[in-house]
């Protein structure tokens, strides 16, 4: 076990368990492996995601927190910043080095002082306010811009599907 990474993940886990932000639950999927977490995010109120609970998987690199984790929704997610396979594309998850998009401010990028909690809060606000400047899912982005009603309908359908209704 990487002493630094697993210790820090342990601290973060405890912190999240004792003092969880609203609408967010997260922890290691299996307590033997601190490097794969499961997270549940509630859909923010006042958005078509409201009422939904979205499971996601976080994978941490061995040199965490120097490098950011990756996050992938394990449910259907129709959102401009989520790839069709569920991978989340958000600036806080991008290391400052690889500016593949060229539009992200360095201050929004991953830094070792960020945490799982901040990532999940950012993703939650991303659900409420998509960034359509660099969409991961172009179709969803276009629909969000041009046919908002249809977009919201799909999102609500996914919410219902996720709840098993």
């Amino acid at each position, binding site marked *: *076990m*990487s*002493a*630094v*990474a*697993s*210790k*820090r993940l*342990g*601290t*973060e*886990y*405890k*912190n999240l*368990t*004792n*003092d*969880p*932000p*609203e*609408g967010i639950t997260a922890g*290691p999927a299996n*307590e*033997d492996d*601190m490097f794969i977490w499961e997270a549940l995010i509630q859909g923010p109120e006042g958005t078509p995601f409201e009422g939904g609970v979205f499971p996601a998987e976080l994978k941490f690199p*061995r*040199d965490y*927190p*120097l490098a950011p984790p990756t996050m992938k929704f394990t449910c259907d997610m129709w959102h401009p910043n989520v790839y069709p396979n569920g991978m989340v594309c958000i600036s806080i998850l991008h*290391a*400052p*080095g690889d500016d593949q998009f060229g539009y992200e401010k*360095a*201050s929004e990028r991953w*830094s*070792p*002082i960020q*945490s799982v*909690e*901040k990532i999940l*809060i950012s993703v*939650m606000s991303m659900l409420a306010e998509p960034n359509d400047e660099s969409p991961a899912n172009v179709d969803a982005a276009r629909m969000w811009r041009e046919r908002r009603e249809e977009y919201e309908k799909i999102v609500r359908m996914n919410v219902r599907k996720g709840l098993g209704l």
Partner: protein
Amino acid sequence: MSPKDKNEIADSTDWLPTSLPQFSVLESSLRCQVCKDFYDTPMITSCSHTFCSLCIRRCLSSDGKCPACRASDQTSKLRSNWGLQEVVDAFKAARQGALELARRAKENEGVAHGDGAATNGMRRGKRKLEQADLGPEEEHGRVTRTKQTRTQPKRGTRSTQASQEVITIPDSDIDAEEEYQSEAPEEKEPEDGLVACPMCDARMKEELVFPHLDRCDGKPKPERREARASTPPPAPPQSRQNPAPPISPMKPLPHLNYNLLKEGPLKKKLSELGIPTFGNRQLLIRRHTQWVDIFNANCDSPRPRSTRELLKDLDTWERTQGGYAPGQGQTAPTGVMRKDFDGDEWSGRHKGQFDDLIAAARAKLREKKQAEQKAKEEEATSSTNGISSTPTKEPPPLMSNQDPAIPDIISEVEPHQTHEQPHQPSLSKRNDDPPIPALSILSSAAAAMVHDTHPQHAIPPTHCSEPHSLQINDKTPTSPDGVYNIPEPLS
């Protein structure tokens, strides 16, 4: 990590369910934002942010920027933050006791204030706490938490009470001081008009010292000597004093300009530093960087550790992120045996596999011998059976026809498999030209009918002749087998 471990991790949220929730904020401000642990050898960057020495060194090695504000910085510009180190040490020492007191205070609070305004106050506090907990932004939540204590004098006084109780803990220091004082007189020259023997410290009248010295064996009386040794230097207890920045005997290592170093010189540098030199260039660079960070962080530390311990840290890194890390196979040593390769350990670990291989090889050899023997026996029996012998005897002439092609194969094979030679000619021949021998054999045996009605079991009348045709058909597959087996060195 088991759940038990998780509970053992000390964390700022430990304060939330106590009577001093605001200590959570205090504690998190005493923790490094990178490793989330208490500051260990805190260093200030040029942008005035503070991190553990090792944390900031690793960050700067990886991207050269302050993790908090992303200002560019260099490790050479880091400065120690002794004051903070002291605060952290003091807090860590007081933490356990204070936490227990605060927990107990909370329990008592629950029992004592079962009525009236106090209960209202409690409820109000709780509700606010909940709100704070649920706040979407953490900072926001923390602000409300502190606000709540400001609007609540009751809680405030309680916390000061508690912290007063906490303050009483340093009493142990005073005790220590008293102890020290009670111990000190022993060391002072007691004013009893006696003097101490310079050799054994025994006290006696001045005029007796010289006669005593003639007899003195120089063995000091045990307790006295001990008392002297254990007497602390005339300084107040540690916790009260500014620890003077120790003059570290170790000099920080310089970072190398890896672009200017080829693999050879780089390896040499690593071996000069006494760290492993296996792996490719990329791994060597990463290992060197890691070592420099670990080593220099230790140089900053007021409590430097031995190089051996540092090497252990490097080994941990090696196993988790370096050459031995899972999923890092490409950086692991390939093909070349490591210098410190432990052959005994290796053979012990893989004994089972070796045994299996040996057993398999032996079984194969036995099988082959049995097959050979069987073939010989069959040949022998078949040769004694009049007509049936013709088909089996037929091949040799054919083989001789095709001789020109065979010698090459045999000559190649010979050194390994001389004992198999009797078979080889027929085998290789069959391979070269299978249809002809079969046909010729059958025709010569006047068994064309058998050949046409291929499902052999369906021909009871020709029963007696069947074994031969079968044998021939059987032989064709077995013989190539023999040929393919040739390259195997085991037999």
